[in-house]
């Protein structure tokens, strides 16, 4: 605790850096994955290719991708872009699959009736498909957010800022408290992000909670029916 108080300023700075490194991949990942996922959902041919490529990208171990990035991008090893690009790639790889599933899950009946009452393709996407895919997309972003915040700490291995610094520094100084502070801080950021995402979801998708409740009820009813 004394260490925390003595170093509160550094903890705060590193936390801010950590957040600055986490937010762009989450946002970019979402913005890129939604259209890609829609294409994979819409066109059968592209689906296999897109999902396979994402699967392969996701297979690459993160540290390998971070350290290979300067070579690929031609950047300096300490450039934050390396980390941001790497984590964006992971976010997209993870999110495209979810986005595809999300659009798949929108009932064909709804889409067709939207077409039947005169929605054009563009408005149908924005006003029908995207909102209805919302709950699944939100679940996907939450996973991406949590894992991104955790992955940012790996940047410390190549000398990047963020709470991961406490891991490498604490390990070198053989000082467990410092590492613990880093772990707790990382988890706190992840939790705060998650809460913000859930709140955003409640605001943007007010019907989803009703839906979830309905589904829960349906499930209880089904269990009862099975038991009967």
């Amino acid at each position, binding site marked *: 605790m004394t260490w925390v108080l003595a170093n509160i300023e550094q903890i705060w700075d590193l936390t801010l850096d950590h957040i600055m490194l986490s937010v762009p991949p989450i946002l970019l990942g979402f913005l890129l994955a939604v259209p890609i996922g829609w294409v994979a959902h819409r066109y059968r041919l592209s689906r296999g290719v897109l999902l396979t490529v994402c699967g392969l990208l996701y297979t690459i171990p993160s540290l390998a991708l971070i350290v290979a990035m300067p070579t690929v991008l031609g950047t300096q090893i300490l450039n934050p872009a390396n980390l941001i690009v790497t984590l964006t790639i992971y976010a997209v790889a993870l999110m495209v699959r979810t986005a595809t599933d999300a659009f798949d899950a929108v009932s064909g009946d709804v889409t067709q009736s939207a077409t039947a009452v005169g929605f054009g393709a563009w408005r149908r996407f924005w006003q029908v498909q995207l909102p209805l895919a919302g709950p699944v997309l939100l679940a996907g972003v939450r996973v991406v957010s949590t894992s991104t915040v955790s992955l940012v700490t790996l940047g410390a291995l190549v000398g990047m800022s963020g709470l991961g610094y406490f891991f490498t520094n604490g390990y070198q100084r053989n000082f467990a408290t410092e590492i613990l502070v880093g772990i707790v801080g990382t988890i706190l950021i992840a939790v705060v992000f998650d809460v913000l995402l859930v709140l955003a979801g409640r605001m943007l998708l007010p019907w989803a909670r009703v839906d979830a409740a309905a589904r829960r009820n349906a499930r*209880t009813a089904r269990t009862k029916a099975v038991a009967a």
Partner: protein
Amino acid sequence: MIRFDAVSKRFPDGTLAVENFSLTIPSRTTTVLVGSSGSGKTTLLRMINRMVDPTSGSIRIDDDDISTLEPVKLRRSIGYVMQNSGLLPHRTVADNIATVPLLSGVKRAQARAEALTLMDTVGLDRSLADRYPSQLSGGQQQRVGVARGLAIDPNILLMDEPFGAVDPLVRSELQQELLRIQKDLAKTIVFVTHDIDEAFLLGDQVVLLRTGGQIAQVGTPAEILANPADDFVDTFIGADRGRRALRIEEVSGRQVVIDGTGRLAGILKDGAPT
């Protein structure tokens, strides 16, 4: 003989599915439990093989209180056919039919031979033996379900809306098939349905249930039709709307039968009904 004696069932969530139910189901006949959803008919059926245990009361099969019998052993001695056939998707038709014999230690070759014979019994072509359930039509799947129910040559066969999910044409085919099988095998069949016509067609004894497993009327189809116990029964069997009251009219020189709702029920053939 199966005897329910003051049986009640309250589920853990508080629903009282069956209250103080008593009934004797005679051997080697078909008893149909008929009622709407919530009448507890499936619960009653599932109590016979201890898939559900009653909260109070007792059930006896030939004087053995089933609560003293080991559930797994009891279930293996009773055939069970359910609505969605419940076939194991990863096993072939023949293996599905032979499931219980194999569990009870019958040799593979023998179990297969018996499964093929049963396919004949239920009117399935033997060439389907090595197909998977997903490759069969709904009607064929139900036939496999019936064959599986008969596999251990049980005295009792429980059928839970077995023909509920197939289209009307196939359903009537399966019903005729069941009548034929029952004529040959004379099992004690307990059959659950919400379709009163099906109940009247198949049942030697029909048990009409209200909510909570209360018996509205028990009797042969003719007894119930002739003497509906009350308005509930009247409504249920359609007598109140005149669906069961038929009259003959002459149309274009032929005699047609019309029911009380004005619906054309059929054409009267010459002479006595066959």
